[in-house]
């Protein structure tokens, strides 16, 4: 593959080094094992820690900072971090008030975070795991490893961080994260697969006239391969699937995230957002807040995901609470 790479084996280490130097007032990089903490550790408060495979930048390290995460644990490309790295982050971030671990529902992530939580418990760290499983593309959890956690993770991390910043207890932070996790729904599509650097070939091949519908954030498929169509038609398919799945009816208020997968131009994300807004207007659903951009990417995958979360006044307040991270800044 062609890319701005020195050594395929070192892409994660080198990217983290660059990220940390570029954002040195916000984050501090710890190595061997890798985890990213805040530049200045808080003196008290429930630590919110997340992590997962690398290749989804700015998730998760980009969301470390005031009002959001206390630490992020990046694994190898598309590979969950190992228990010792997660444990190091827990030990480093815990102020003594406990740790909420926000975990995307993938077999590897769940296994490694569970093992780390057990190890942390043994050394006196209280923790709660909150699973994010917002991907509606995976319909029947009896026949799969369960719904995947995808772009909705950003919303869960944001509200957890807001409750913690407001002085919430371990239970309160976990509860807010669980509530958002239960409300948020996403679905994505890919126009072109992505390439893991040390493998050098695309994870899957799509013909010019094909779209992978219901794709996960590693490019792994979900629903079906469909024919290429207009932006509106494809967006409708995403919105329909989400609306059908969640509790989205006239009178609802929602947060919308239109997320780029890494190689989708900004103008195309805006075109998708336009259609999402039209559809929600038609349904009588009020868009309270919106976010459009690359927040949960899949390396160089060309594609988009749509996320909706139906929210009340309390959740909106948490969403609006000040945040200062490398990837999201507002209210400061």
């Amino acid at each position: 593959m062609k890319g701005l790479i020195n050594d395929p084996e070192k892409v994660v280490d080198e990217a983290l080094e660059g990220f940390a130097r570029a954002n040195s007032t916000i984050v501090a990089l710890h190595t061997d094992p890798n985890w990213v903490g805040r530049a200045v550790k808080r003196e008290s408060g429930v630590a919110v820690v997340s992590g997962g495979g690398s290749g989804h930048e700015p998730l998760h390290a980009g969301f470390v900072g005031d009002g959001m995460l206390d630490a992020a644990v990046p694994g190898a490309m598309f590979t969950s971090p190992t228990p010792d790295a997660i444990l190091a982050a827990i030990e480093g971030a815990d102020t003594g008030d406990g740790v909420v671990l926000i975990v995307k529902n993938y077999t590897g992530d769940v296994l490694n975070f569970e093992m780390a939580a057990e190890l942390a418990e043994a050394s006196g760290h209280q923790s709660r795991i909150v699973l994010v499983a917002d991907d509606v593309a995976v319909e029947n959890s009896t026949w799969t490893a369960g719904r995947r956690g995808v772009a909705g993770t950003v919303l869960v991390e944001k509200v957890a961080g807001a409750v913690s910043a407001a002085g919430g207890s371990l239970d309160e932070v976990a509860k807010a994260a669980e509530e958002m996790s239960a409300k948020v729904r996403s679905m994505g599509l890919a126009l072109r697969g992505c390439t893991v650097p040390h493998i050098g070939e695309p994870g899957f091949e799509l013909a010019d006239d094909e779209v992978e519908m219901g794709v996960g954030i590693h490019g792994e498929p979900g629903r079906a391969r469909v024919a290429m169509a207009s932006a509106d038609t494809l967006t409708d398919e995403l919105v329909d699937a989400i609306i059908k799945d969640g509790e989205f009816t006239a009178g609802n208020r929602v947060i919308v995230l239109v997320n780029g997968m890494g190689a989708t131009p900004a103008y195309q994300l805006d075109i998708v957002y336009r259609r999402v807004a039209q559809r929600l207007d038609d349904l009588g659903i009020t868009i309270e807040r919106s976010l459009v951009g690359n927040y949960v990417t899949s390396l160089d995958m060309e594609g988009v995901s749509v996320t909706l979360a139906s929210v009340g006044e309390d959740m909106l307040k948490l969403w609006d609470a000040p945040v200062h991270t490398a990837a999201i800044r507002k209210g400061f």
Partner: protein
Amino acid sequence: MALGTDWVLQWTALAAQAAHEHRVELIELDRAIGDGDHGENLDRGFTEVEKQLESATASDPAQVFRTIATTLISKVGGASGPLLGTAYLRMSSSAKEQLEPGDLAAMIEAASQGIQMRGKATEGEKTMVDAWAPAARAAAAAAASGADCIGVLEAASKAATDGAENTRPMVATKGRASYLGERSAGHLDPGAVSSSYILEAAVRAAR
């Protein structure tokens, strides 16, 4: 003849060699139904295992298995790190200084149970369990019918190879491949295949 620490070390060396030789093949199998990192992760894990064993003094099988377990858990990541790590941890718990045929069968059964517990998986879900569970049954049957150590390991290895092959028509219901649903049928499960290579290395080490 019973098997001891030398066998475990030789097994590990051959397993590491297999992980390296089959790296690309396992990546390709995983690309078809997963995310393509299985060969990479396994090779990285076993390379590190060899490094760790070089610097450690290996006194008994249990200790070697424990070193392998902690190294795989801390270096592999993904699902296969904790799953294989748990398998080795269970083998460490059930291992004796000198392993007789019945001990080997019990050890493989412990590994199989550990994987099923950690992954909350059972047979027929197109995972590494489909190699380990039949291997454990075959090893127990061979030991019960009076096979020697090599005989028990041969039975386990053959059953694992057949078990891996049997994953081809299965529709995955666990792990990354489950998102493909029906489209996962027709492909071998990479975790079952790599597990069969690991058990094959156990036989070759004993011969």
